[in-house]
């Protein structure tokens, strides 16, 4: 009778350090960052007198932070959609009894093994206007400026759609604040290169888990290949799509290494992201409270995506 209880204590004692470490280093330090974001510590020397929400107010009033938030949204949308589409396409192609399937799979997936820094350095060289892809395809460097392009595509307030939006009181949407910075799309190309193989692997695992009988049954019912894909496979892959969107989405919300290596700030902050601003604010400008506030905003953005996912995942597991 004594033995189980001693083992029980031993097991609790051995997992306690990890729980404590996560408690301190994740939750404790987040709490501390949250506290710092409410102080006046915007100089080298810590000043913990409270400033209320002043740092948040000054961050959100900072036009660079506004640009960064726009960039994050643009990057996230393009990166997630492109990666999911490319990943699903590649997985569907590979799921058709392909010769050398293993070789193709390895080629599509190897970028996942290397760091965003290497990816950024290589793609910077590939997309430098005076070199790279432009010289390969004979494109004019002055019009194909890739990540050095300061253009922000947006609706024009004085043309059709812009006027209609204005009539509905949505005229503000027809401005560069809600536009698409062209330079960011170059970063998307590099990011998709790195991450789409991961999505392919997720989908391929999912497709392999769908019994052949289901496809066969649909074919017997007269469905063509597209019909099988659209009405049998795609609905069954929904949980995987959800996982992929959430994993990619939370990566893109905190993207840092790739933009730093490829194009740290970009022309008129066209490739700047909150993570970059946070780092420079804290460790270059020594405005720690303002940087902490940016970090907390990033945390909230990620938590909005991740917390429901964790809860959903736990429920799924509980019911399994």
């Amino acid at each position: 009778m004594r033995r189980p209880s001693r083992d029980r204590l031993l097991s609790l004692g051995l997992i306690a350090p990890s729980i404590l470490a996560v408690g301190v280093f994740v939750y404790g330090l987040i709490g501390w960052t949250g506290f710092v974001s409410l102080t006046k510590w915007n100089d080298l020397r810590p000043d913990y007198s409270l400033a209320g929400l002043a740092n948040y107010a000054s961050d959100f009033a900072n036009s660079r932070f506004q640009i960064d938030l726009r960039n994050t949204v643009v990057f996230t949308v393009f990166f997630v959609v492109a990666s999911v589409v490319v990943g699903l396409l590649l997985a569907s192609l590979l799921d058709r009894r392909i010769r050398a399937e293993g070789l193709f799979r390895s080629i599509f997936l190897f970028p996942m093994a290397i760091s965003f820094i290497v990816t950024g350095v290589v793609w910077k060289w590939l997309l430098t206007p005076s070199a790279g892809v432009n010289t390969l395809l004979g494109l004019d460097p002055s019009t194909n400026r890739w990540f050095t392009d300061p253009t922000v595509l947006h609706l024009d307030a004085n043309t059709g759609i812009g006027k209609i939006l204005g009539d509905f009181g949505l005229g503000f949407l027809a401005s560069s604040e809600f536009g698409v910075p062209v330079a960011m799309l170059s970063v998307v190309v590099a990011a998709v290169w790195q991450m789409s193989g991961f999505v392919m692997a997720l989908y391929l695992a999912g497709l392999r888990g769908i019994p052949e009988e289901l496809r066969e049954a649909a074919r017997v019912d007269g469905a063509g290949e597209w019909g099988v894909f659209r009405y049998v496979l795609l609905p069954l892959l929904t949980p995987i799509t959800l996982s992929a969107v959430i994993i990619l989405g939370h990566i893109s919300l905190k993207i840092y290494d790739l933009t730093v290596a490829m194009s740290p700030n970009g022309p008129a902050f066209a490739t700047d992201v909150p993570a970059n601003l946070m780092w420079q604010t804290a460790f270059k400008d020594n405005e720690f409270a303002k940087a902490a506030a940016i970090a907390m905003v990033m945390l909230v953005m990620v938590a909005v995506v991740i917390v429901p996912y964790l809860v959903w995942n736990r429920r799924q597991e509980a019911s399994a």
Partner: protein
Amino acid sequence: MIAERRATAVPVASVRRSNGLRTFLRIVLYVLLVAAAIYYLIPVYVLLVTSLKSFNEVTLDRMWALPAGLNFGSFSEAWNQLSPNFVNSLSIAVPAAVLSSMVGSINGYILAKWRFRGADLIFTLILFGMFIPYQSVLIPLVQLGSGVNTALRDVLPGISLGYGSIPWLVLCHIVYGIPITTLIFRNYYVGIPGELIEAARIDGAGFGAIYRRVLLPLSIPGFVVVLIWQFTSAWNDFLFAVTLTSQPNWPVTVALNNLAGSFSVSWNIQMAGALIAAMPTLLIYIVLGRYFVRGLLAGSLKG
């Protein structure tokens, strides 16, 4: 399986009609796959040809051309600049991977086989740690690390364990690696039948003996997955390293970014440096790709 498919009754006429179309679609399929493969391999091609060129061959109009001959001058120059950082990366990633996998294995064992009240909640709370933007802990990590330096200054003069040092970075990799390593091992151990544990217990084995005699021998693949995963993450890390280490302790990612950011360094050296920085994890991927993919899929929870 294939025989079964053939056996399904399909009108002969429709098979004949679709035969030509079928071949055509197969060709389209392979064309698409090869096109995609080119997109993934172009950076590798440029990386290789640029880094193998001699200095006077690195001109814009010859950027895509094969090098006239194999020239390893760029590599030796890049290696001269990056080798201390390469060694730093090894002394960060190897201990981080080894210690992480040990911690993860114990945690996974307990969460899978010694479940306690509230274990599920605690596990979910731990998992959250692998998704957070690390920006939200960077400032306190610097403060805490400086505190460690101050506290140890008199106790261990001349030895730095805190901010700026490699041990502090390793500690961060281990602590923030707890969620993923625990997750992988827990899911791995859940699959080990309870009967094996029960049998060992009847033989008188306790907590430690069950782990050593039953789980550990079955854990090799789990350890390979976690070792690879943690080594790759630590090797490829930039954010923690650039924030928490001082220049002599920079790993290769930080040094490479510095090298590539300076305008005085020519492209062939940058590309050779990138290849050097990518080589270890790339080799692991080529040799142990299967295990790498397993870690990758585990990172998306159970989905």
